[in-house]
């Protein structure tokens, strides 16, 4: 008895409350999204809102059940759980029901289950178990290889189901690994790549090279304020540029000025690197490497995009970046979604007053595009409240993870935050045109039993672990 009271007392009720609030908000918005005057009761079980209530009830039962387990259970049974989930993933590939070109579902009568949803918490457990093991060194190549296997085996199997969105979720573990000591360059380069990619798609490549060429000496000067060295660098580039310009003029301007800059940059980069090495100016090498790689990267993106990708792939990316607007073509969903959210204004149109969601202008409105209903009916106030609730939850998760004495618990906690973050950013991002349209649900909000239950399991295992934080280390 004494132990149970302890659990009750040591449970973090803030995060449980956030969970309950989000789940209920989700349910109300599903009601608004698929509201049907004929079946206006929110408890009508023939409708999605009625069904969602059943899933919510079941989710609460699952949460309660998790509390009945001993907190050491999850650490102890990590590998069997991981194994069983992998087994399900493989079997869904063989026995699963194919819908929309994806083989991701088990179907038992009218009941459908998506094993990939449950793979997330299993993978998270496995990572926590592996990273917290005695002797583990993240800088060890063998360790990195195992981490790679733990992540990419499920990731690959989900890719085989043709469910790209769900497989991308596993990239989120980069946050967890970073927290546990992975070199910051991985995170830095991941973010830089995304930013450069977007810039390369949105801005003319010639403008990029010009801006970078101007920025490079300025950055160098700020780091190492010696006019003479900056002057030498600029001189070298000017010399290289005029040589290439002369060559280009000689062949009757066969290449555009962009390539003159490009070639001059490479030549001067080599020269500056040699000089910087001799004079031991580390910044110079760093800046030149960054400059050259950025330019090369944007060039490559451009080249791949126009010469390698096929038309429909280009469309998808263009639509995301808002380059071409084709409201009834590939950009239809995002456009309708933006209209729905944008038309909500400051205070929204009011409950059940959303015309865009109600009349099916927004596709997948109860699942992937549930955020539109919030935006249209609750306005800016609603979207900020929901976004804030999620952010508070994420920050609370970091706080809870950091207070764990058990490394396993801490790592698992970061995993939960990483996965939720990825889902939230990509899901909301796609409804407001800031992320590609990849069909992943909004945690706790979107309609569907599988996703609600899997997020519940993911979160409540951590809450269970947290409630046990005062016990001896596992």
């Amino acid at each position, binding site marked *: 008895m004494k132990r149970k009271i302890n659990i009750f007392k040591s449970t973090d009720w803030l995060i449980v409350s956030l969970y309950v609030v989000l789940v209920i908000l989700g349910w109300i918005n599903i009601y608004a999204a698929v509201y049907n005057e004929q079946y206006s009761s929110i408890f009508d079980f023939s409708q999605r809102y009625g069904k969602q209530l059943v899933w919510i009830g079941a989710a609460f039962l699952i949460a309660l059940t998790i509390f009945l387990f001993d907190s050491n259970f999850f650490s102890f049974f990590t590998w069997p759980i991981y194994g069983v989930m992998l087994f399900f993933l493989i079997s869904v590939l063989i026995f699963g029901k194919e819908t929309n070109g994806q083989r991701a579902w088990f179907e038992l009568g009218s009941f459908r289950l998506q094993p990939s949803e449950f793979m997330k918490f299993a993978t998270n457990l496995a990572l926590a178990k592996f990273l917290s093991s005695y002797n583990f060194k993240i800088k060890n190549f063998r360790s990195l290889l195992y981490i790679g296997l733990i992540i990419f085996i499920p990731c690959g199997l989900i890719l085989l189901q043709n469910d790209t969105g769900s497989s991308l979720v596993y990239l989120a573990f980069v946050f967890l690994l970073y927290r546990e000591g992975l070199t910051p360059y991985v995170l830095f380069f991941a973010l830089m790549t995304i930013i450069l990619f977007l810039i390369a798609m949105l801005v003319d490549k010639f403008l990029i090279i010009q801006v970078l060429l101007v920025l490079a000496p300025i950055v160098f000067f700020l780091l190492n304020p010696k006019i003479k060295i900056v002057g030498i660098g600029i001189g070298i580039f000017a010399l290289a540029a005029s040589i290439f310009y002369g060559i280009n003029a000689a062949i009757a301007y066969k290449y555009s000025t962009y390539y003159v800059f490009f070639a001059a940059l490479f030549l001067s980069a080599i020269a500056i690197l040699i000089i910087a090495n001799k004079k031991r100016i580390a910044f110079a090498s760093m800046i030149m490497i960054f400059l050259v790689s950025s330019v090369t990267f944007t060039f490559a993106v451009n080249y791949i995009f126009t010469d390698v990708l096929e038309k429909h792939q280009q469309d998808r990316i263009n639509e995301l970046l808002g380059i071409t607007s084709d409201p009834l073509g590939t950009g239809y969903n995002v456009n309708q979604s933006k209209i729905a*959210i944008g038309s909500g204004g400051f205070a929204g149109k009011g409950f059940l007053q959303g015309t865009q969601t109600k009349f*099916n202008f927004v596709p997948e409105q109860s699942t992937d595009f549930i955020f539109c209903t919030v*935006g249209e009916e609750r306005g800016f106030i609603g*979207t900020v409240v929901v976004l*804030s609730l999620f952010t508070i939850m994420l920050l609370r998760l970091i706080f809870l993870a950091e207070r764990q004495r058990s*490394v396993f618990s801490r790592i698992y906690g970061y995993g939960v935050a990483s996965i939720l973050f990825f889902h939230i950013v990509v899901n909301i991002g796609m409804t407001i045109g800031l992320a590609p349209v990849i069909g992943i649900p909004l945690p706790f909000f979107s309609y569907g039993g599988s996703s609600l239950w899997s997020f519940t399991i993911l979160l409540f295992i951590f809450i269970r672990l947290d409630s046990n934080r005062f016990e001896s280390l596992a």
Partner: protein
Amino acid sequence: MINPYSNRKYIIGGIFIAFALIFIIRLFYLQIIDTSYKFSADNNSQRRITKYPARGVIYDRNGKILVFNEAAFDLMVIPQQTKQFDTIDLCSILEIEKDEFTKKFKDAKLYSTYRPSVIISQISSKTYAILQEKLFKFPGFFVQGRTLRKYPQPIASHILGYVGEVDPKKIKENAYYKQGDYIGISGIERTYENFLRGQKGVSIFMVDVHNKIMGSFAEGKFDTAAVIGTDIKTTIDADLQLYGEKLMSHKKGSIVAIDPSTGEILMVVSSPSYDPGLLVGRIRSKNYVNLLKDTLKPLFNRAIMASYPPGSTFKLVMALIGQQEGVLNANTRYPCSKGYAPLGGHPKCHPHGSPLDLSNAIGHSCNSYFSYVFKSVIENKKYHNTNKAFEAWRNIALSFCIGKKTGSDFSYELRGNIPSIKYYDKIFGKGKWKASTVISLGIGQAEMGITPLQSANVVAIIANRGWYYIPHIVKSIGNNTNDTTLARFKIKNYTMITDTNIFLNVIQGMSDAVESGTAASLKIEGINFCAKTGTAENPHGKDHSVFVAFAPTNNPRIAISVLVENAGFGAAWAGPIASLIMEKHLTGKIKRPDLEKHIMETNLIGD
């Protein structure tokens, strides 16, 4: 502490917060700054269907319908809402060429992607029935009910005018009109547009993504009902109008007949005319171009827009002015030697007895006589100078609406012309002209111009012995008999000549013309009437045949002016036409079928 990377929690937390902030900024932009989404949302989910009211029906003075409405349908499109569709299928239903359709669809897109445009206007009921069943295959397209003008008889096209699509300029001026709306372009349709058009209504429906109507928006709170156009009763006598048009067939010219006691216009014929049905519906623009190209100018309303020398009609006015100015009385006699002797026989005259008194001079339309009268008016001693006398003469003429708009309810009524002192000063130099310089004004020639409507009004004034109501074509608007729009037609206007005796002398002359003068062959059994034959000099070819008359002599009920272009002497063509019309109007039947047949069958145009 075995937690070496603990500080990284700040980086991770920072990234989480950064993303939240980026999203909030984006949402702020989408939901608060950029208002275009709100507009798109309404357009997405609301379909505004304009309810076009039927235009008012136009009746003749006896309640016969001149123009009414029949149902028609326009195929509309909202380009943004269209999906891939089978163009060929749609074109075959509509029975139009694919190229035409493609062009119209492109135009619609250019106009607006989210506002409805007319793709094909005025689809027949038959096509509509077929289309209605297949419309579900063409999201973004819908059918809008309209009404089209329909004419029971192809008459009075110039009076009624026509209706067409409103032009961009008008849309800018008047917010009521939207692209694709109809508006009266000429005739009564134009003058009384505000009454005839009614008031458009709108129904706002909610539509889903498949463009399917889901119900009315806000339970119809924002819907407005269409108000049907107001009916208009004209002063036209449809039977007389039809008769006049028949008499004028194959002739160029015009007839205007007025009831002098009310100023109501009984008929207005401008020949050649056209079938008003030609300017309705899809065939309108094609026919319009053809009518415009026709060298006989059938679209031109000669009765109000053509200016002719007033000729013999003006001699009547000269007779009145002379008496008013005290230089002429019934017994004044002037000689005629085939012309006006003081100026070497100019203006010329035809052979007749000489000298003549006023009554006979009117009967013979003597040019010499009225030249003398004009000279005596302009050289009137009481004014001491030519300018003052000329101004007095001109003012009296203006009070007869000669060279001045009558103020009728016709659109585009012509003013006509009566030259001013300023004008002659410019031509001849100040003080360098006198009566003999401008002598042909006395016989209604030279720079003078008058429309057939003005001419008929002059006759009505004489018939009334000095006053008139503004000639008008609308008797009543709707059920409101006291409409202020028509108030100006109920005011008696007086000319500067009010002494009825002055008129009686002229009327005597006109009566003599019928009893024993130039119009003797045009007598109507049992009816005394007054007339004046004439010829309007035409510098461009054969003279115009002119005839003015009113009947009966006492309590006149019709004043008429007939002009047949290039038909020579007045009694030859214009006279019989006027005589037949008066007989028809006053007795309801024609006792001279041979004359009627002869007139109707004669072709004076020559093709």
